[in-house]
């Protein structure tokens, strides 16, 4: 899994006393959502918990729940550490969050439909034209084309961070091919296997039906050319892709074929897969391949992962591609800073969920501010992901900062800057008991004729004390995420 993140680091190294802890109050009493869990935890034998933790690791290893880290040839398959203390969110907190996410996802789809059709948001002067049209993620091939059901982002993973009781911020809208949902499901499965009693004591909302919801959501958006029961398939780049485990897992759980580009061909205006009985048509393709590689005739000619001609079939209304090509324009970091305007423009209401304040270095005033305050800011590349190519001001050396300042000055439009946020913490199990660690959250959203938000999602946790880096590619772990029924 390689996902973008907020890799901010606190000014003071080590423990951050000011961070909001989601489990314990300052007086060491449990916060309300954790009260039942805390009683259970207090009654547990700690050595048994440590043993359980090892057991969980064995389950993951045995099952092959691994991801690949690019650039590490000898360690090509890694486990993501799993921490067995759940992250618990109350029903009330969740409802508020879910409303904000729903509003945002609706706005994203309206935005995509607009910029590939009338471009009213540009005409209204709310977003600069060149920001859209000069963006690599903007696909001219999508202009004037409306995907089946008008849905662009079938699956969204909105990255959220929390800084206080009621302060949630959207860090990123992952609207291309968000990964990690298999960890959400396996984490829950593992917790239920190891601690069934916890699920009797707490009323935890289920996430297990995600594959079922996903399949139905995808099938409900079959193209006009589909006659009969829609045939769904998952397209993977293959076994060496970092998220291959997830692709196979989802295909398996949905009961659909897992295909590679080499299995597919365009025949008689349909995308068909080569089976042992001949070629059979596919109606909905849940692709886990980037836009660039989807169709060598339209995009990268050297791509061996894609299907020559699939874009023609798509435009003729004979296949649904999820997510639609060209959705990357809406989760671009340069667009991110405009999200409050975008939400308001399309929903007519103020955004319920806040953005992290963002300075666009392309603007001279902002650039000036960023250069002057580099020691307090996180600077990210507009198109980067996975925590690579960024500067974490507070922890960088003076030399690193001045080197980065040069890069900033030479290509300002390539960067945005954000303040370091004091991310909330949730305890993890350590040898001495429990210790707080910073977390983020990625809930998963399915869009069809309705918006469905899976209660919970993937909680990523920084395993090092004080660290705000939650990326699995940089040593982060995961937790089961509970939304309580209340």
């Amino acid at each position, binding site marked *: 899994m390689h996902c973008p993140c907020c890799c901010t680091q606190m000014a003071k190294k080590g423990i951050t006393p000011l961070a909001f802890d989601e489990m314990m109050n300052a007086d060491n009493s449990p916060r309300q959502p954790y009260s039942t869990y805390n009683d259970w935890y207090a009654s547990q034998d700690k050595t048994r918990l440590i043993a359980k933790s090892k057991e969980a690791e064995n389950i993951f*290893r*045995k*099952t*092959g729940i691994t991801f690949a880290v690019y650039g590490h040839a000898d360690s090509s398959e890694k486990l993501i550490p799993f921490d067995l203390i759940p992250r618990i969110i109350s029903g009330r907190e969740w409802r508020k969050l879910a409303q904000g996410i729903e509003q945002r996802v609706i706005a994203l789809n309206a935005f995509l439909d607009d910029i590939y059709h009338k471009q009213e948001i540009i005409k209204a002067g709310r977003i600069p034209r060149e920001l859209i049209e000069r963006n690599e993620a903007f696909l001219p091939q999508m202009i004037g084309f409306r995907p089946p059901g008008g849905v662009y982002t079938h699956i969204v993973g909105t990255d959220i961070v929390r800084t206080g009781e009621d302060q949630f911020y959207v860090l990123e809208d992952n609207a291309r091919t968000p990964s990690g949902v298999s960890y959400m499901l396996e984490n829950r499965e593992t917790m239920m296997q190891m601690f069934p009693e916890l699920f009797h004591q707490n009323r935890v909302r289920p996430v297990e039906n995600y594959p079922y919801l996903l399949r139905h959501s995808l099938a409900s958006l079959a193209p006009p050319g589909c006659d009969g029961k829609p045939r769904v398939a998952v397209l993977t780049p*293959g*076994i060496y892709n970092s998220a*291959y485990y997830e692709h*196979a897992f989802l*295909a*398996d759980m949905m009961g659909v*074929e*897992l*295909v*590679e580009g*080499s*299995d597919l061909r365009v025949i008689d205006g349909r995308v068909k*897969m*080569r*089976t*042992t*009985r*001949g070629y059979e048509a596919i109606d909905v393709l849940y692709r886990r391949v980037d836009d660039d590689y989807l169709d060598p005739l339209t995009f990268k000619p050297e791509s061996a992962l894609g299907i020559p001609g699939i874009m023609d079939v798509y435009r003729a209304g004979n296949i649904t591609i999820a997510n639609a090509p060209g959705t990357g324009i809406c989760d671009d970091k340069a667009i991110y800073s405009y999200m409050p305007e975008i939400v308001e423009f399309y929903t007519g209401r103020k955004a319920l969920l806040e953005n992290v304040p963002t300075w666009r270095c392309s603007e001279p005033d902002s650039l000036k501010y960023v250069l002057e305050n580099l020691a307090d800011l996180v600077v990210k590349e507009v198109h980067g992901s996975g925590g690579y190519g960024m500067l974490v001001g507070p922890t960088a050396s003076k030399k690193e900062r001045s080197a980065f300042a040069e890069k900033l000055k030479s290509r300002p439009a390539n960067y945005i800057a954000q303040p370091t946020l004091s991310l909330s913490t949730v305890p993890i199990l350590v040898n001495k008991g429990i210790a707080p660690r910073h977390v983020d959250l990625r809930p998963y959203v399915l869009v069809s004729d309705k918006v469905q938000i899976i209660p919970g999602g993937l909680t990523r946790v920084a395993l090092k004390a004080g660290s705000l880096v939650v990326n699995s590619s940089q040593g982060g772990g995961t937790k089961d995420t509970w939304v309580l029924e209340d």
Partner: protein
Amino acid sequence: MLGRTANGLYWMFRYIERAENSARLIDAGLRMSLTRSQATEDDWDGVLQSSGVRDIYDDGYENLTSTDAIDFLLRDKANPSSVMSCIDSGRNNARMVRTALTRETWEATNECWLDLKTMLARRVKAADLPEAIDAIKRKTGLIRGAFHGTMLRNEIFNFSRIGTFIERADNTARILDVKYYVLLPAVSQVGSSIDNVQWESILRSVSAHRSYGWVYEAEYKPSHIADFLILNGRMPRSLAYCYEKIASNLGYLAREYGESHAAHATAEETLASLRSHSIKDVMDQGLHEYIENFISHNNRLGQEISDGYRFY
């Protein structure tokens, strides 16, 4: 089912079968060097030839020694038929077709790979070899057990079984191809101890040294050994047994799909020949020619299956 999935299943089971066979060949080689008063490099030459990797060995090593040959057969990545290479390839194919496998079958395969990767991370000491070979047989056996105990008897099962038996037939035939001369009446001096060692080695390399005794009343005779490995339909590694299985699994596919391919005719033809001949016919025709002919037919069948079911 996707053609690529059928291909992945076929090769997954070919590789797992081959890993086991490589382990058996090492076992037979070791045994031979124990029973011989003087172990000769020729014994390992025969083992490498049976495995079809003599040329690759020469590319990487100057001399033929037993320790190098064993390491080469166990863990050399340059050798595509080494136990570790086979387990790697088998598990990669399993990953590719994961959605077609039961959880138990996948986990047995993954655990086999995890354990052997650790065990074969460095050269295995001579004293630890028996234990290592045992572990390989046990781990691959667990895959087979999980597969038989949990998989639906459908096309997935059929393609997997076909892969297993094409590989097994090839292995048994290769052993005969390399060692045919010790089974020729003209060369053998019946009852000499050299022959006994050679014969037992052949039987051991197909794990049949005990069962042979039950069927032929412990009478070591070249024609009996040839009969056991080629024509005996009850011996699970004989050519006849393999083809009974290949033909029946292809038959299921033909009924299920309502069409048959060139592969069906080829398999039936080979099976009919194995059923109708006596070992005397085979010996009269010439054991060597018979085996070479069989190997090339078996390869052709593999290609026809791949074409007929659109593996690529």
